[in-house]
């Protein structure tokens, strides 16, 4: 480790991980290249598109606007950790993932992990017994860019997921 590197300990998707990273390494790059979690995508590197959104200590953040050293001691959730194990070697998709597939809310899929994490964070923190309004949905997804879908099916998927989480 040189003087421009630090070793960080971070819990990623429930698993404690350690990495030695240059202090200037972006969190997005550390996740992708140091920890091999390439599901988090980088679309603009200036915090506007939201493709790199991950959940840090419960809040959705743009991992291209954070340095890896800033998450030392934190808990990070990425798209790879969204589905849960079903104890039979398979996976149970998160309702948001299910909804995206059901509603055709993705095309090329590049922005999708960012949307999934943003919406998962949004729906998990709200009381889904309260009906989602169009404005709620616009607020939730309004900071992420998608160039393929025109958003109609993404909005539909948010409603779909919210209903599933309410009924769960």
């Amino acid at each position, binding site marked *: 480790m040189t003087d421009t590197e630090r070793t960080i300990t971070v819990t990623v998707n429930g698993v404690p991980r350690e990495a030695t990273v240059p202090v200037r390494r972006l969190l997005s790059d550390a996740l992708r290249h140091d920890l091999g979690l390439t*599901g988090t*995508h980088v679309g603009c*590197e200036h915090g506007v598109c939201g493709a790199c959104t991950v959940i840090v200590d419960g809040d959705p953040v743009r991992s291209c606007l954070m340095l890896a050293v800033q998450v030392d001691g934190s808990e990070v959730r*990425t798209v790879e950790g969204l589905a849960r194990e079903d104890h039979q070697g398979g996976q149970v998709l998160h309702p948001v993932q299910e909804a*995206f597939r059901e509603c055709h809310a993705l095309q*090329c899929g590049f922005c999708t992990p960012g949307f999934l994490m943003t919406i998962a964070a949004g729906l998990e923190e709200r009381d889904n017994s309260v009906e989602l309004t169009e404005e709620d949905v616009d607020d939730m997804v309004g900071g992420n860019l998608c160039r393929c879908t025109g958003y109609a099916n993404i*909005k539909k998927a948010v409603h779909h997921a919210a209903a599933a989480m309410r009924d769960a």
Partner: protein
Amino acid sequence: MTTKLFGEPVRRREDQRLITGKGRYLDDIGHTALAAAFVRSPHAHARITDIDVDEALDVEGLVAIYTYEDLTGPMAEPLPVLIPHPQLHAPRTGFPLANGEVNHVGEPVVMVVATDRYVAEDACDRIVVSYEELPVVVGVDAARAAEHAVHEEIPDNVAARHHQETGDVEPALAAAPRTLSFTQYIERSACMPMEGKGVHAKWDADDSSLRVYTSTQASTSVRAAIAAKLKLSLDKVEVIAPDVGGGFGVKIVHPWPEELLVPLAAINLGREVKWAEDRREHFIGSAHERQQRQEITVGYDDDGRITALDVHIWHDNGAYTPYGIIVPIVTATQLVGPYALPVYRVVVESVFTNTVIVTPYRGAGRPQGCYAMERTMDRIADDLGLDRAVVRERNLIQADQFPYDHRLTFQDGRPVIYDSGDYPGLLDKLRTLVGWSEAEHLRADAAERGKLLGVGMALYVEGTGPGPYEGGHVQVLGSGKVLVSTGLTSQGQGHETAFAQIVASELGVPIEDVEVTTGDTRRFGYAVGTFASRAAVMSGNAIALAARGVREKALRIAADVLEAAPEDLEIDAGLVQVKGVPGTSIPLRTVAVLSNPLRYAFDEAAKQATQFAKAGDDDKPPVAVGDAPGLEHRDYYSPIRSTFASGAHAAIVEIDPATWEIDVVKYAVVHDCGNVVNPMIVEGQVHGGVAQGVGGALYERMAYDADGQLQNASFMDFLMPYASEVPNIDIDHQQTPSPLNPLGIKGAGEAGVIPGTAAIASAIEDAVGRRIASMPISPTELYDLVRDPSSERTATAARREAGAMA
């Protein structure tokens, strides 16, 4: 039958990996690769006087630096003019790395390879390139004025003069009862896929072979270009398009400099090398589209029927012409839309500017053509005081006029002959869907709320599925798995699903057994690429033909086993059976095993096909003459000409006269792409296209300053629509199957974007009563327009005012 999935909204098979983070995009590949980064020109037009790399040499982790001096042989020559055309009289292309001169900001000058991207960029920062600045040409008007030249030896800046005419336009205009002339503009936007370009190359020195992954829309042609430029045998180069994070046209251009330089470095260094384009690089180093100046003269009668149309377009092609004049040709030929024009003449002058190259962006010249034609319709209606829908209706090609020959030559070199359609049907559906007849009530309601409301419409016809060809390969394995491949690539269109639906339907197998591979030259070497709404038409039909070939062979083999005639057999749910005789069947997987006579039993299933397993006819060879082992078939689809999809859009806008904010409150689409493989996917394509259409009409522009600096080269400043900017879209469908291909389909990829600018311009003009002659338009520009006393009022606005006062 359970396997007839053609036409069903089957959920996408690619989604499972993409929603769980298991997609494999370019930058997900090559974990240990060296990273390339580029020093790009900061000047729009300059001579390079010196490149000093000394300071960079000390950067720890630097591996190599390349400048033009390091390029030899074909790599030292200009990049190819991909689509030559006789009317492209002065084509120009750049070099992989600038050779003494740069012609736009962002042109690559030096490539650095280092242990990681951070280090490579450190080294780039320390390289000092000295320039002698030259006069800069920005924008179509400056290029046309030709005070300065982009390329010294082309003083008028004109790369091409594309000209088509269907009759003698001048006498026709002279004889027209009425004429009007006007000039209008449309600005630059860009594809802006969420994933930029990227290249990964791995050289196997022992095998002297190269594997390249690239985020491309044309892997087979990238392969050929790399082989030619790096002087490799084609069989030693593999090119694979992995998951691609959107394309919209920009990734059809090839070879990009990086697609040659990264493999070059990988070979030279004997290491994996990767380059992933960042967003700023994409803005200044990839491609844009759309800027045109359109000078239009139209002759028409008192009923609004067009008698002659004369169009002169000045098209900004940027610094170079690697993609030829495809965009100008598409504008010139698709401009005519769904209308019968007795005489039409078009001249497109394609001009150089010191800006990023112009190559197809979804629509590829069609939005501009539609803008020209549809705004002409609006002007005629305004002049005559007629309903804009009625003027359009009077000029439409009728449903009984197909095939309809426009006497023009399309982008594929083939005649523009519309195969099928029902344009009056589209228009009727659109009027109903948007509530066209209710417009005046809506306007009055909005006025009571203090808002200005306007409606607009635009119709288009889109040539889709141009040739020359695509191919498909279908193979049934002994496991029952059906492998399907085609050479063209996917960027989110759901090809894995749509093509699997076609094979499942044609072959009679469960879709779960079908695996589709696209864009991988290891699997399919012959292909053209994914552009011009052609994948479903071209590869869809090729794959259907291949599946039919497999079916025929399967029935022949099964007929032998079941002692029945092939015509008495059917395949359903993966079983070949005698029609109407349940129980007499053989699984398709067994047929696949039997199709390949074996000596060696490598597994249980294979035993059935070994030489002592079954008595053969001693007088016949195990593989019949003219036959081949294996249950597989390869076929190609090569159309005589393009299919022509069509559609009609309408927009209702509300404008707040306090802020001049423009709100699209309703957007209606009627769409006809012939038979539909998967309506869910088609609707998704329309949604995405409309979003880009709205972006192009209201938000997106490339803001170059006079020095050729792109002022908004970031997502902070280049405004792509978020969810809050895209209106709800009402969609209605019409299906007029294409008679030109076995599946009766037409393409759908670009449709949504084409009429957006025209329809929204029309709606805004309707709302404010001022002529909208330049798009996109921002609230500020609209404000400036309405308060400018010299801006033109529409006759409709004057009539409305007179009516209100009367």
